């Protein structure tokens, strides 16, 4: 009896250990397996603040009146065309005929009006509300014609308001519904969300653009461990790792069956300073930091060489950005930095503390910055902070200097206005420059591109050397793909809106 039970035990053990070799691979619909690092916080496009949410929903589930193409230029979205009145205060959008939401209801101008009402409502408290601050009123002239009247001309409006996700009018007063069950107009509709597991989207067969989507679905697997994501892509468990940094990209580069798509980022890494207290209230000290930085060295050390030095605007914005050669202080010159410190009345070493955003590339950058500043008359202490603490200090302007990253946008106004204008909502630097304020205000009201460009050129020159942010680098952004994935276009704003055109060839 004992003999039998011992054998049985061993057998049972062997069975438990044997990998289930049978597998469960059924020939099934074509679903693109995407691996992302973080769970979305909710799926309501008007309430979300997390990038993990936007990555999954924008351009896939939801769309706006206009969209941004891979060259970061505005292209028609739900609106097929639009006109602007000569005084720049009236925008008239013509919607495409015959579009429907995922719930089957028609897309009409009234839906856009109630979407904007929703964004502006106190109850929803949308972080996008400020994008519509300039809006006087929105009206549906007829079911397919939308008229926006502005309080004053606003050049950035087309992108800032135009890309707001349009939702059905039935959602206007719904606070929670969209967080769990999003309803948009995009090429994919929401199917299932297993918290911390995955978000599954399925094909929207009634999508307005013919020929799209090509896939039957997209599954965003939430995989927090970066090694697992890399192995998953190399082995073919996942077909896409969207928006990865250089370090991760290097890991999968050259693996059989893997390809990389890349573009220059809109987001930039930087060190920012508190201009309300010494030593950085003195413009000469800010200039000194610029001279002390060797941006190429930082890029080589912290970004694995995958990036370029940049000024206040991303070089990806070819229509707007000035070349860094235009900024005198971008020349690495520690002696000049020391001299500037002396002129400002400081005796070296000037002790400062840098708060560091807890992200690997930023930590790496901060260490190089520390070494470079120490050589140029500063004495730097790094403070590696936990995210919650970092944000709290950031918001309370409780820092000498901090190392972090800022998101960008296709329009310069979004880079500058809230960050650098006196009293701007993310001007934690307490920076104030009357001339810059004037430029930013007037550029908003300008209609002609050359005129706006002139104002922003001037702004870039002021900000590059005297501003509260020392721009360091614009990194290279990558998306890792299986070789058989076609039709994907990486966009610098990190939107995955081209998923509608993606197919997997067998």
């Amino acid at each position: 009896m004992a003999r039998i039970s011992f054998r049985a035990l061993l057998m049972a053990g062997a069975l438990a250990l044997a990998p289930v070799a049978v597998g469960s691979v059924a020939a099934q619909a074509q679903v693109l397996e995407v691996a992302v690092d973080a769970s979305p916080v909710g799926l309501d496009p008007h309430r979300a603040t997390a990038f993990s949410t936007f990555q999954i929903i924008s351009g896939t589930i939801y769309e706006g009146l206009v969209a941004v193409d891979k060259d970061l230029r505005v292209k028609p979205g739900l609106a097929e065309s639009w006109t602007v009145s000569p005084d720049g205060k009236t925008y008239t959008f013509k919607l495409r005929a015959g579009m429907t939401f995922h719930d089957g209801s028609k897309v009409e101008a009234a839906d856009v009006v109630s979407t904007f009402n929703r964004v502006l409502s106190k109850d929803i408290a949308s972080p996008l509300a400020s994008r519509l601050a300039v809006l006087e009123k929105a009206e549906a002239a007829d079911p397919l014609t939308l008229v926006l009247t502005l309080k004053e001309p606003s050049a950035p409006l087309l992108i800032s308001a135009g890309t707001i996700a349009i939702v059905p009018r039935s959602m206007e007063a719904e606070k929670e519904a969209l967080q769990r069950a999003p309803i948009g107009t995009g090429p994919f509709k929401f199917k299932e969300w297993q918290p911390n597991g995955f978000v599954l989207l399925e094909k929207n067969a009634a999508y307005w653009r013919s020929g799209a989507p090509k896939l039957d679905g997209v599954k965003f697997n939430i995989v927090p461990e970066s090694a697992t994501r890399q192995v998953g892509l190399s082995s073919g468990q996942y077909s896409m790792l969207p928006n990865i940094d250089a370090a991760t990209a290097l890991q999968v580069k050259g693996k059989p069956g893997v390809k990389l798509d890349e573009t220059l980022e809109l987001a930039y890494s930087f060190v920012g300073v508190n201009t309300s207290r010494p030593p950085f209230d003195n413009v000469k000290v800010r200039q000194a930091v610029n001279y002390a930085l060797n941006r190429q060295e930082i890029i080589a050390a912290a970004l694995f060489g995958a990036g370029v030095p940049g000024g206040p605007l991303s070089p990806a914005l070819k229509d707007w950005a000035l070349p860094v050669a235009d900024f005198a202080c971008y020349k690495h010159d520690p002696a000049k930095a020391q001299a500037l410190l002396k002129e400002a009345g400081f005796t070296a070493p000037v002790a400062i503390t840098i708060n560091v955003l807890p992200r690997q590339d930023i930590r790496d950058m901060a260490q190089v910055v520390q070494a470079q500043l120490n050589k140029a008359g500063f004495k730097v202490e790094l403070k590696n902070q936990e995210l919650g603490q970092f944000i709290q200090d950031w918001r309370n302007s409780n820092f000498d200097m901090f190392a972090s990253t800022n998101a960008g946008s296709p329009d310069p106004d979004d880079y500058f206005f809230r960050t650098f204008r006196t009293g701007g909502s993310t001007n934690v630097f307490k920076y104030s420059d009357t001339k810059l304020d004037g430029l930013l205000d007037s550029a908003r009201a300008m209609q002609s591109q050359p005129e706006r460009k002139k104002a922003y050129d001037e702004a870039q020159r002021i900000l590059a050397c005297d501003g509260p942010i020392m721009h360091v680098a614009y990194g290279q952004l990558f998306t890792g793909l299986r070789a058989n994935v076609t039709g994907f276009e990486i966009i610098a704003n990190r939107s995955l809106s081209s998923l509608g055109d993606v197919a997997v060839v067998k």
Partner: protein
Amino acid sequence: MLRRLLLARLLDLAVVLASVSVIVFAMIRLIPGDAVAIMLGANTEVTPDKIAALRAQIGLDQPISVQYLGWISKVLHGDLGTSLWTGKPVLDEIVLHLWPTLQLTVLALVVGAGLAVPAGCVMARLRGGVADAAMRVATVAGLTIPSFWLGIVMILLLAMLAPSLQLLGYVPFWQDPLGCLSRLALPAFALGLPILANLSRLVRSAMLDALGQDYIRTARAKGVPERGIVYRHALRNALIPFVTSVGIMTGYLLGGAIVVEQVFAIPGLGRLILGAIAERNYPLLQATILLVTMGFVVVNFVVDLLYLAIDPRVRA
């Protein structure tokens, strides 16, 4: 006897839970950084009024003692609160994440504890031989290899050997039993291996101890066959320390599950807890840790009951 044990255990449970509730409540609030700041995000437009409004809405503007009393009285009435981020009852979220972890833990226990008994017996019987030495070396390796490393190596290996196998993520058993098992097999092995190593060493030494006892000599003298001696007489006595360890290991398993779930992208309790810490999701974290603690105490209670079954002396 049973009743006294039950009463003692219930008292234990109450004391443990009460102290854990205080510790958890205080600890998460001692972590620097504020739920509200994180909720509102770094790059959105935020005004001090917005922050104040949200703090008041969540109740964070109250003194911490008031917050604790409010929370604990609700818990005693069966209301564990709602998640700060999703607004859903935390119990729903916990139940959702409990299943994957439960399945993983049970499978890992099957691997670890289930195999430890035969492995330990074999080692004890082959004591002193080359096979015994080899197995002991193997157990040291098993003890020292970290689960997460083992997990990644196994993913790499199997991805090369059997690319069509679904290894990552989780599907509920009732949706796709085979898919579920094939996804859980590797993590269960990675999680169970250190336990297997630990427990098989324990069984080996307990068996050797038992085999040296007088009653074994008596059994031999009356002519019981060798296998009968090992499995019926010695093993039964060796099982008592084993069962104690299994109870303690269950606690270890929950800790290990946090790491292994991370590697294998399994949406379990570990991921829930980590996420809740990162988000400062106070109600969710408090409830989860409270329930996990309760689970641990209950497991130890079950272990006590098992003593009764194994060892008649305890019953006396």
